[in-house]
């Protein structure tokens, strides 16, 4: 066969001819984000992609192939299952179970009252205590949560945002009381307030004072807890709220750059904090689109951090991220199928070079997961790590015409969105105009319409439906109302037993510091140590900062 250009185009023509002759089956041929997918990608589609400057090598700029030179050949990703329910005692037992089954790191899910800065006995907490996470109202609960788990021996990720600085202070004091020093502690606070306004909607204060608290934690971590990731900039919730893959990518990175700019404004040196920034992405159902998203994230981030923000330390340019499989892709119908969905989503995360991974349990559309379901989810990761062989080589999909082309398209799409955000005046301006919220809402509605029109097929929901589902019913975890009663009694007991004078003094300091331009972390640690409750400390801030209410749009 001829190897000239003319010869190649002839063979492509011949392929096109046979393709058209055979015809296509009746399907949409789009990614889950409604991006059309070409039947065949050829070298011509990636002719502009440079093997050195665009793809490069792992551990080298622009880090498309991974932040580290050796990736999973040195150390596998961290298997980190998000867990929390009921009381601190209940969750402490679940952590011990997971550690015993081979999990590497802990990940705390808090209940809604804790996320919103209310104590368990607050009237607004009624019916919510311990339901979708663990209830933590004071240092006392935090001490119970990690009882028998030495905090210098594990790394802990905490999904907490609005009151993150206070909850982190409780964690730091717990560790100190266990005899650990702050520089031994590793872990992550999610602490990504911007995506709360955009997608997850667990906000308390307005954006400006919230950003100040975030920068306080970044600064405190840089100076005192050097192994801590103060923020995990999160796309997960943006995606779950209904965004497309490229929106998740662009909105998340834009949030990340907004934190970078806020810290630079405080006068911090970029290389003093950027190495500890981390990210958190969703791994959704469309296998290759997700892998491309992960690879593009690293490249875009490295380029901007170096070229726009002047980072010098290579570690400041690394987009390191945690991945969670997509909860919203799971179905209540035929829930065993969720094991398989989660399996390939996890595989996409691994092929995308994630640093840590949470795999969802099959029963999460029904309730919080049971021990059995969580075990299968963790085993899924262990199967990928030890049986599939995919961790033997680094970034195995590099050079695939299709994957490189998709990666380029992801980068171009994200850059377009960055331009729109800049035109609007930045991320906070976009939040104020409800632009992000509207964009996500539109994408979610479009998806649901397509699903119902049969353009998106979900097995068990709109195809291969089983009318009699009794066989598939799973045993589910139920949280009894005794959890709430028990927590309320415990909080009341704490209030009676602690030193009222110490509590008063600590709250007064929080009040003073909130209105001064000082870092608030020491005041929160003093408050935690005095057993001030979360609600008491947040109330002082509510008074000082005001509260936020969103413009409701749909």
């Amino acid at each position, binding site marked *: 066969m001829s190897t000239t250009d003319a010869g190649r185009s002839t063979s492509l023509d011949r392929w096109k001819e046979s393709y058209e002759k055979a015809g296509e089956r009746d399907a949409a041929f789009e990614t889950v984000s409604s991006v059309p997918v070409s039947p065949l990608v050829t070298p011509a589609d990636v002719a502009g992609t440079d093997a050195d400057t665009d793809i490069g090598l792992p551990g080298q700029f622009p880090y498309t192939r991974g932040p580290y030179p050796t990736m999973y050949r040195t150390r596998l990703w961290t298997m980190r299952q998000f867990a929390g329910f009921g009381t601190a005692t209940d969750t402490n037992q679940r952590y011990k179970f997971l550690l015993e089954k081979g999990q590497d790191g802990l990940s705390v899910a808090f209940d809604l009252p804790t996320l919103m800065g209310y104590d368990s006995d607050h009237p607004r907490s009624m*019916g*919510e205590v311990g*339901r979708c996470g663990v209830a933590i109202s004071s240092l006392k609960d935090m001490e119970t949560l990690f009882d028998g788990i030495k905090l210098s021996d594990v790394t802990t990720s905490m999904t907490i945002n609005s009151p993150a600085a206070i909850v982190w202070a409780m964690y730091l004091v717990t560790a100190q009381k266990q005899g650990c020093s702050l520089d031994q502690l590793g872990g992550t606070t999610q602490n990504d307030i911007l995506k709360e306004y955009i997608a997850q909607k667990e906000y308390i204060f307005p954006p400006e004072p919230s950003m100040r608290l975030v920068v306080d934690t970044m600064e405190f971590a840089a100076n005192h807890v050097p192994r801590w990731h103060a923020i995990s900039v999160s796309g997960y919730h943006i995606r779950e709220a*209904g965004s497309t893959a490229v929106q998740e990518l662009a909105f998340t990175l834009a949030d990340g750059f907004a934190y970078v700019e806020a810290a630079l404004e405080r006068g911090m040196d970029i290389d003093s904090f950027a190495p500890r920034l981390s990210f958190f992405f969703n791994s959704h159902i469309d296998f290759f689109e997700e892998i491309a998203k992960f690879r593009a994230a690293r490249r875009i981030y490295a380029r901007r951090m170096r070229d726009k923000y002047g980072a010098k330390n290579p570690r400041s340019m690394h987009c390191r991220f945690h991945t969670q499989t997509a909860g919203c892709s799971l179905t209540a119908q035929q829930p065993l199928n969720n094991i398989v969905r989660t399996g390939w989503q996890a595989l996409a995360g691994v092929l995308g070079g994630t640093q840590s991974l949470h795999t969802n349990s099959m029963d999460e559309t029904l309730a919080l997961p049971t021990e059995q379901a969580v075990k299968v989810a963790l085993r899924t990761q262990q199967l990928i790590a030890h049986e599939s062989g995919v961790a033997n080589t680094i970034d195995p999909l590099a050079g695939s015409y299709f994957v490189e082309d998709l990666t380029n398209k992801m980068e171009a799409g994200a850059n377009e969105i960055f331009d729109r955000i800049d035109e609007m005046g930045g991320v906070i301006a976009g939040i104020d105009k409800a632009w992000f919220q509207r964009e996500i809402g539109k994408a979610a509605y479009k998806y649901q319409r397509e699903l*119902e029109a049969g353009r998106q097929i979900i097995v068990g929901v709109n195809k291969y439906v089983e009318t009699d589902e009794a066989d598939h019913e799973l045993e589910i975890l139920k949280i009894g109302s005794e959890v709430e009663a028990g927590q309320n009694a415990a909080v009341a007991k704490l209030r009676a037993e602690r030193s009222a004078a110490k509590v008063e003094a600590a709250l007064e300091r929080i009040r003073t510091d909130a209105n001064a331009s000082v870092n608030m972390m020491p005041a929160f640690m003093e408050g935690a140590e005095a057993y001030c409750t979360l609600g008491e400390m947040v109330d002082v801030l509510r008074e000082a900062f005001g509260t936020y209410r969103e413009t409701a*749009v749909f």
Partner: protein
Amino acid sequence: MDQPIRVLIAKPGLDGHDRGAKVVAAALRDAGMEVIYGGLHQTPEVIVEMAVQEDADAVGLSVLSGAHMHLFPRVVELLKEAGAEHVLVTGGGIIAPEDMEELSGLGVGRLFGPGATLKELEEYIREEVGRRRTAARS
């Protein structure tokens, strides 16, 4: 001709997952209903006040946090107190079938779980509100 159906969609409690509520609000609007979106983090008291003020035929509540056994009955109870028991209380979220049954016994209408279609709930609201309007007239 009948007045268009007025529906209040709201999120009671502390749960911030508003994807479902917003998709439902948009679908009911496109189906010709008058939709009032009450937004997030509302107390049952505020929701009932809005429902009465807006003269809603139905209230759609979305709860994914597990607090449904507290929030749904509270809204039904407060509507009764406000003399607005004709208002249909429906909704959806992560709600176990046995909880749905128990709530139905407490005067809550049909509840929709994951996988329910927009068409199903639109039809249900139309039918149920129609039935209640006819009953009120006779």
